[in-house]
């Protein structure tokens, strides 16, 4: 019921823009409130790039931690490590954003200036490094935010792998890592992919932290340092300035697109995790 209401309501709100721009909205690269031209391609690209950076950083770290927690830490010590990670997953995104803005961005600025000075000849590193806020900062922020989520879910999935599978391989003389690499990871693959997709969904919909460190500039980025909008940050920062109904309607249209994307991703993740647990519900969060 609520889901239908949500979709219907968003459609109603964005109808004016849908009628006016049609599907061209999705590939438009202009955002000009004065001439009433709106297109959503650059923020969509921004979302995509930031989430990709986040996944590249977060996935190896979280799966590594999850394997370590699930197989290497003695049972009694396990909570000592996994408890903080679960707490981390519960911290509101606005606090991540505050921390990112005041603590992480200066660090990233230093790194960016150094990178540009030494590797500036690489095209995508030759950008406005001194801002600090931008594609790289946004991606890092998202990586920090989705790591605990992916870790917690992957750990739960890894713990469902039958212990006997591992023990059989250990008995044949395999080292623990070989057992994990050859048996556990293939066994849990579907579920792990589900966990990663869930993290992806979270990073795409993430608003506050990205608005605070992403730079919020409406142009297609050319380098890793360019400030750029994501779809969510675009909605968050422009909404207060939207003065006429087509403007508002365009932002809601963008929200609808964002909703559609996250819905598909979330469905996919749930199906994967669900299939693994054979109809039992995965308990998330």
């Amino acid at each position: 019921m609520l889901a239908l209401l949500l979709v219907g309501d968003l459609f109603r709100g964005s109808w004016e823009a849908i009628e006016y721009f049609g599907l061209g909205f999705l590939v438009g690269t202009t955002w000009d409130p004065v001439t009433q031209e709106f297109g959503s391609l650059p923020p969509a690209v921004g979302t995509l790039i930031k989430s990709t950076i986040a996944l590249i950083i977060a996935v190896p770290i979280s799966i590594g931690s999850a394997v370590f927690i699930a197989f290497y830490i003695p049972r009694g010590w396990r909570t000592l490590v996994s408890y903080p990670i679960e707490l981390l997953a519960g911290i509101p995104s606005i606090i991540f954003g505050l921390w990112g803005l005041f603590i992480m961005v200066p660090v990233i600025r230093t790194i960016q200036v150094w990178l540009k000075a030494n590797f500036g000849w690489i095209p995508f590193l030759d950008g406005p490094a001194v801002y600090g806020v931008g594609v790289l900062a946004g991606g890092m922020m998202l990586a920090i935010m989705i790591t605990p989520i992916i870790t917690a879910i992957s750990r739960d999935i890894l713990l469902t792998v039958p212990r006997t599978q591992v023990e059989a391989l250990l008995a044949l003389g395999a080292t623990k890592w070989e057992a994990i690499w050859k048996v556990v990871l293939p066994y849990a693959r579907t579920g792990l992919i589900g966990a990663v997709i869930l993290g992806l969904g979270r990073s795409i919909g993430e608003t506050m932290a990205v608005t605070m460190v992403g730079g919020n500039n409406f142009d297609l980025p050319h380098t890793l340092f360019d400030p750029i909008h994501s779809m969510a940050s675009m909605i968050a920062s422009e909404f207060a300035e939207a003065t006429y109904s087509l403007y508002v309607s365009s932002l809601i249209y963008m929200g609808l697109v964002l909703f559609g994307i996250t819905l598909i991703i979330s469905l996919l993740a749930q199906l994967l995790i669900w299939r693994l647990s054979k109809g039992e519900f995965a308990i998330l969060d």
Partner: protein
Amino acid sequence: MSIAAVNTASAHLATDRRFRLRKLIERVAVGGMVCCTAVTVSLLWIILGYVVYRGGKAVNWELLTALPTPPGDPGGGIANALVGSLIIVALGALMAVPISLGAAIFVNEFPSPRLGKSVRFLAEVLTGVPSIVVGLFAYALIVQPTGSFSGFSGSVAYAFIMVPIVMISTHEALRRVPSHLREASLALGIPVWRTILWVVLPIASRALLTGILLAVARALGEAAPMLFTAFGNPFWNLDPSKPMATVPHLIYTYATGPYTDWHDKAWAASFVLLIVVLITSMLTRAALRSKADE
């Protein structure tokens, strides 16, 4: 030395080398994983440390009880946002709890397997809806027709965030109630609705409460939906039909603002918010754990 002996020795050497290589790979893998875990865990301490350090310095009694002063004037506090957050979340919970309890009871106690599973599945998917989209939804649903930003529209947004969380945890709790208790009650001739009300719900009550608390903690920290529903308000306001200030939204405004004094207040507000959220989440986890031990 015979040829056979040399062969055996070199075979030994090869096995030995292979074995050492495997040992090395094992060590490298474990080392890598230790690093990963260390990074993940230390992130919490770094973030927590900064919030406690910067926020702890700025937090004081005046901050919690006074109203904001105009920018530039010293002193002042965030009392209006604290109260605003409480009112909006409480209103949201009032809306969300009956809906989600009803839905969970319906799904679990009147089982039509396909319907139940699909409703539950939908709820899982709904937890993945970005909070900013929820905000847009509340905007189009309440703010546009009524023509003004209001605390109430913020509650609707929060309710929408809370419903799937409460519903999922309630459903889990109800599933764990042993069915023989239900059957015993029904066998005594007690009607289904009374069985649910007097037998099933009391047994599951603790888990229900945990679920609600979790949802409230989650909602308390959400800033994105407040941007265009509750909208924020620098003055004292207890009337939910007018714009209201909330703590997470205030953190956003203050953090992105140009004044150092505002930045300090943003840290202080984060400190307060973090403590509330962490305590709630620790309490719920403790409750769930002791439940699991029983």
